[in-house]
């Protein structure tokens, strides 16, 4: 009985102190998926995000002297649990990181009402770039249409007309995420005279893509571009190896460049490329800090061999972007504790220059970019990463998307969304 009383007292104290702890600090929740079918790809990303914030707390005492409350809420990639997490965290949070196109779609319309910024780096809805329409959504540094454009630029050697007469297949997940680049590819195919062939992979067929690869063998496309996630990536790569599809003609989006997916095929995967807006830099100064303050201190959930992987380091970049947004807002409003709408201003006015990246110790991990009220993506371009049989290495110079072409597609798509969801408030004050 005494034990029970002690426990009760202890938990009562814990509740009180936990309540007190919540009151101060920057509440930054992350809707993680460390469980469920996509956990293998989720865990390194989530670890990277978490470790960067833990490093800031340990090194600088947070951001601007205020500790970061980095809370995780587990969704298992399920939309239903995602919305549950969003509802549970939105009260005190200054940002929401939905981490799935499905959850983003659900949360996006609510953010105008709840006035909370969505940070979806490199995912979500490409027209979110139009900050006048999507005031609360951010997907810097690159949208999916940017990715598609960079891949085409690389394939065409900078001149898209050279793709004329070629056949390009898009092996994509049959899901909002996988369908995202199709409008862009269709527009490009029409304008530049190449043949575009979308090959959907249903959620149930992710691990068994023999039908799709039979089609690829029959159609003999010049290039196969992959928009896959989770088990689909590993499935596609092993099928490609089995059907002996030339790996140097097989290119994935940034979510299809997970080290573990390629490690299973090892040498036979040599030549596979993945476009990426982040690049791993094992020797970056920031990595030394993370190793010293987080990893060696035993605060990290990551494994040793994970630290240099593409996804872990991308997680670091994502948290860095958020931290920069917070810092920009703190400087502008001259307040250490900022609220959601101040953070929105901060995310809209990020100016990540080469000097700033060097200061952060992250040179080369992400291209420099700047956001504005009209441009929520930054469109900073990226690099091709190539699998050399053991790891991903940068295999191209800095690639840029055709921003003008993309902008001409973004505007109408954003307007269409706003119209379908009327009444949709638009940022009238924004000039840019």
């Amino acid at each position, binding site marked *: 009985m005494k034990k029970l009383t002690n426990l009760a007292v202890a938990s009562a104290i*814990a509740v009180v102190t936990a309540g007190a702890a919540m009151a101060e600090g920057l509440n930054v929740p992350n809707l993680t998926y460390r469980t469920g079918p996509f956990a293998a790809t989720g865990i390194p990303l989530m670890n990277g995000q978490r470790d960067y914030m833990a490093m800031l707390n340990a090194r600088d005492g947070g951001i601007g002297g205020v500790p970061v409350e980095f809370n995780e809420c587990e969704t298992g990639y399920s939309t239903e649990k995602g919305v*549950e997490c969003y509802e*549970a965290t939105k009260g005190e949070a200054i940002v929401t990181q939905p981490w799935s196109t499905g959850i983003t779609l659900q949360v996006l319309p*609510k953010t105008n009402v709840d006035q909370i910024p969505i940070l979806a780096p490199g995912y979500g809805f490409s027209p979110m770039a139009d900050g006048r329409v999507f005031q609360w959504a951010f997907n810097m540094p690159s949208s999916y249409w940017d990715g598609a454009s960079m891949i085409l630029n690389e394939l065409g050697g900078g001149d898209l007309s050279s793709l004329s007469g070629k056949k390009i297949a898009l092996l994509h997940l049959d899901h909002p995420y996988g369908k995202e680049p199709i409008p862009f590819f269709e527009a490009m195919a029409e304008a530049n005279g190449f043949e575009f062939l979308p090959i959907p992979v249903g959620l149930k067929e992710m691990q068994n893509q023999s039908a799709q690869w039979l089609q690829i063998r029959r159609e003999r496309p010049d290039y196969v571009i992959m928009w896959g996630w989770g088990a689909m990536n590993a499935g596609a790569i092993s099928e490609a190896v089995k059907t002996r599809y030339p790996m140097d003609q097989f290119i994935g989006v940034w979510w299809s460049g997970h080290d573990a997916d390629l490690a299973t095929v090892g040498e036979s995967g040599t030549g596979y490329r993945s476009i990426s807006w982040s690049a791993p830099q094992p020797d970056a100064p920031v990595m030394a800090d993370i190793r010293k303050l987080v990893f060696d201190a035993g605060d990290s959930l990551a494994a040793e061999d994970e630290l240099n992987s593409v996804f872990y380091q991308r997680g670091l970049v994502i948290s860095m972007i958020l931290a920069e947004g917070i810092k920009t807002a703190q400087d502008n409003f001259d307040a250490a504790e900022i609220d959601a709408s101040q953070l929105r201003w901060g995310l809209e006015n990020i100016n990540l220059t080469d000097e700033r990246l060097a200061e952060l110790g992250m040179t080369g991990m992400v291209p420099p970019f700047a956001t504005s009220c009209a441009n929520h993506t930054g469109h900073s371009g990226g690099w091709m990463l190539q699998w050399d049989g053991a790891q991903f290495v940068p295999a191209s110079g800095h690639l840029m998307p055709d921003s003008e072409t993309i902008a001409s597609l973004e505007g109408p798509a954003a307007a269409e969304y706003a119209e379908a969801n009327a009444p949709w408030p638009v940022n009238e004050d924004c000039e840019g």
Partner: protein
Amino acid sequence: MLFRTAGQFKTSYLKDQTLFPVRQDAILLGIILAFAWVIFPLTASEFTFQTLLIPVLVYSLAALGLNILTGYAGQLSLGTGAFMGVGAYACYKMITIFPEMNLLVAVLVSGLFSAFIGVLFGLPSLRIKGFYLAIATLAAQFFLVWLFEKWAWLYNYNASGAIQVPHVEMLGTPVAGPQAASMTQYYFVLVVVTLMTILAINLTRGTQGRIWKATRDMDIAAELIGINLLKSKLTAFAVSSYIVGVSGALFVFLWRGAAEPNLFDIPISFRILFIAIIGGLGSIMGNYMGAILIVALPVVLKTLPETFGIPISSATVEHLNVMVVGALIVFFLIIEPHGLARLWTLIREKFIIWPFPH
């Protein structure tokens, strides 16, 4: 003591046939209704509305629909998710084609589309039974979800292939879309669910319910006493799919706000089947109890460690949650295989004779 029935005399046949022959049952229901209609809405937070109250009602309604087919008429179905999808897409198309349409009417009409599709896929039930019928309804599941993906007209050619609920107003208040207040949505769902429950109780208590039960218990015997099996089975499919379709429309319009086709895939069908089985097949009340166990309990369990300040990571909580809920399901099915509703009946009987069991 609490449930003493002594002294409650029935002096007319009408009184003997009332819904609640025991007064305490009526009082208990009154209390529950008071909670649902007044106390919960007054005290609930946004989080409670969105993750506990509305989903429990929507899932209960879907399970109620399935229960009419499986629990009362004995036809096993694995296509519930797809029939919900039919209701949701029908409602979406109606609202986007006729934006002035009253949402309540749209929701109630969208059930008709689902009923029609349900009858269509129910036709094989005349020839095949049991597991074989379950496989036939599984075909509905696969086919319809495939259709939701491929038929772009259904989602208005949206590039992402998902449906987004537009802004809908009723009497000047937003009821669906991002601007709708949770309380409005809750009351909307509550009205529809109450309506459907009254309908279901009266249907299953009356002639039609008896016909279904006869079909369920032994179809040859039912046929011999003059029951038209074709009519009996198809009405069960129609009524069941109607309710399921209405719940699908509520699911998307009054709760989720957006839906992609694979939302209506097998996992949701199984989830609803579990709610119906654990709640109790052939019971109306069981659906609500099942939904509370399957839908609400995990949400409550998830918030417990944080409330008590126990520092475990969110992912571990999720793992624990799955284990606890799984263990509870096994536990309840072991102590009462006929579901929670039957468990309540037993407890109630004990209460009636308490403290003098014979």
